């Protein structure tokens, strides 16, 4: 049997239909805006993970255990083949690739450019570094070939190099001696972003080993099928990598980027909070007006012996009904919007170019929102929470009604 007080609350909400509709629309607008921002916030996590999977960083990376503190590209894994095999054996791993890096000077004639040259496995590298697939001219490296080099357009332009040109790479060997090797430019990568293009310079892993005199690989990058599995896979990998090697997560590899993302998320949530505060004040004002209009009624209820706490509960029920209505409208309006955001994304190509680099990580300029059942829980919590907060002052005000004074004034 429905309580009479609940019926009273429900029918009171319907008394001033225009005000109720405006309140519900206000709550819904606030919720949809907050939902949109939260979807983007959650999408940022996915963007970060996507950057990890596409820009070569990897969701996880096996590195020498001293690399965490020194970040020196000359460090090499204790047993990269064992690490590679261990990574491939873990369920949920999509692709694995080994690399070595070296700081080199590239020269063509009188043109010299300092770059970080990566020695890669040509057959698997494009699976973890999507941007090398953007070959504008020529081709990518082939498995087993030697002396071939692929560079980004920005590097080629600064060297004034063209396809098949010979490029001299010079670096410092293990004992401090200068070492050089000759490469042929076989492919030019163009991503649309100079920053990104400057980060692409690759040769075969064996070629880099010969050039630097450092054997082996310095890292094994791992991309997962589902980035949310990072911690689980890492826990498993740590058990099986070679002694002297360590497993780092994407967040550990790019802490500045993660910090930047967290900062962005905090700012977005702050803005959402301000929007909700404005909505909350609007709802509080409407509810207070409703309480003031019914002052005589509350005085009568108080005279009949209704306690302050029951009166507070009455107003809170009305607020929850408004919040529920707002949540329904917000879900109805927000679901298609967030679905579109999740599937089409917000495309910043016009402002950022084909991709952009931040702290050495390459990002896609299309940001996607997150879409899932969390939306219903989020909207319900925000709408009901905001209206509950908004109702506290009007409820307190109603509970303080002095029946004798209110009835005297009403007469």
């Amino acid at each position, binding site marked *: 049997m429905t309580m009479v007080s609940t019926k009273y609350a429900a*029918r009171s909400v319907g008394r001033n239909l225009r005000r109720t509709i405006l309140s519900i629309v206000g709550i819904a607008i606030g919720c949809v805006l907050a939902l949109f921002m939260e979807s983007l916030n959650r999408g940022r996590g996915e963007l970060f993970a996507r950057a990890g999977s596409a820009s070569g960083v990897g969701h996880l990376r096996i590195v020498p255990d001293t690399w965490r503190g020194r970040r020196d590209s000359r460090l090499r894994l204790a047993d990269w083949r064992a690490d590679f095999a261990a990574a491939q054996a873990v369920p949920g791993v999509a692709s694995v690739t080994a690399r070595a890096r070296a700081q080199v000077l590239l020269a063509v004639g009188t043109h010299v450019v300092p770059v970080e040259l990566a020695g890669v496995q040509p057959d698997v590298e494009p699976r973890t570094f999507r941007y090398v697939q953007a070959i504008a001219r020529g081709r990518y490296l082939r498995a087993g070939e030697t002396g071939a080099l692929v560079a980004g357009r920005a590097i080629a332009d600064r060297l004034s190099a063209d396809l098949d040109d010979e490029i001299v790479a010079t670096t410092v060997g293990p004992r401090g001696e200068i070492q050089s090797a000759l490469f042929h430019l076989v492919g030019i990568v163009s991503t649309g972003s100079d920053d990104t293009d400057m980060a692409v310079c690759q040769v075969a892993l064996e070629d880099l080993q010969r050039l630097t005199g450092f054997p082996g690989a310095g890292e094994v990058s791992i991309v997962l099928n589902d980035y949310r599995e990072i911690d689980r896979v890492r826990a498993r990998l740590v058990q099986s990598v070679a002694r002297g090697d360590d497993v780092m997560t994407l967040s550990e590899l790019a802490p500045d980027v993660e910090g930047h993302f967290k900062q962005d998320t905090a700012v977005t949530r702050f803005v959402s909070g301000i929007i909700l505060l404005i909505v909350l004040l609007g709802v509080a004002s409407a509810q207070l007006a409703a309480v003031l209009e019914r002052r005589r009624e509350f005085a009568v209820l108080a*005279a009949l*012996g*209704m306690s*302050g706490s029951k009166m507070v509960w009455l107003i809170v029920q009305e607020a929850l009904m408004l919040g529920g209505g707002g949540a329904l409208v917000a879900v109805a309006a927000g679901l298609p919007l967030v679905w579109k955001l999740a599937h089409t994304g917000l495309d910043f190509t016009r402002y950022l170019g084909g991709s952009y680099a931040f702290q050495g990580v390459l990002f896609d300029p299309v940001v996607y929102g997150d879409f899932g059942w969390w939306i219903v829980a989020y909207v319900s919590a925000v709408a009901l929470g905001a209206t509950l907060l908004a109702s506290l002052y009007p409820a307190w005000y109603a509970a303080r009604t002095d029946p004798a004074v209110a009835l005297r004034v009403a007469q």
Partner: protein
Amino acid sequence: MTQRPEPIVLARGVTKAFVSGRQEVWALRGVDLEVCAGEFVALVGPSGSGKTTLLNLIGALDVPTAGELLVLGRPIATLSKRARAHLRLESLGFVFQAYNLVPVLTARENVEFVLELQGKGLDRRLRAQAVLAELGLAELADRRINELSGGQQQRVAVARAVAARPAIVLADEPTANLDGENAETLMHLMRDLRDRHGMTFIFSTHDPRVVAHAVRVVTLVDGCVARDEVTGGDAPAAILPAIAAPPRRG
């Protein structure tokens, strides 16, 4: 020798002052009154004589400025707000001049609401229906308040006041908005309820026809009890000029 029963309302030197700006307005000036269980008492007097103020004090809606006021043995002046609310809920019923029913509820829901506030169980709907039937409103139980006439609304208000069988029912000018016929009907109903259930009725009025139903008539003038007479249901002609006196100024 018959022993006089214990009074359920006992007022000794009760005064009530309201502050209006820098002025104190004395609504009651040393009221002495005793009301016993089952009495049917009319408070009469000109406007501003203190009838509503006295009803509010007996109804624990307000507290006296000075003097002693015991209602059902409880000292109103020292009760907390919560205790007064509890006293009203458990032991007092109210009927207001302007009915003051909840407009968004039906007649039955208005009655049921009080029972719900009291924490009555699932039979409260049946109890509400029974009270409405007792007052001849069974057919109107599911009507919203704005679908009822003034007389019907006031009967619903009486039903709400008596539904929980309170010890005392307080009515402030209950017939002021009713025509003669409806006023008569209401007074008959209230007397019937008193006779059947032994409830005490204390009501204020200006209406000489209503006073005629009172068993006891207490006349207030300028915040003091000017006359206190047991009429047995027939008010003496001497009271009527006091009722009809012009409102006090100031």
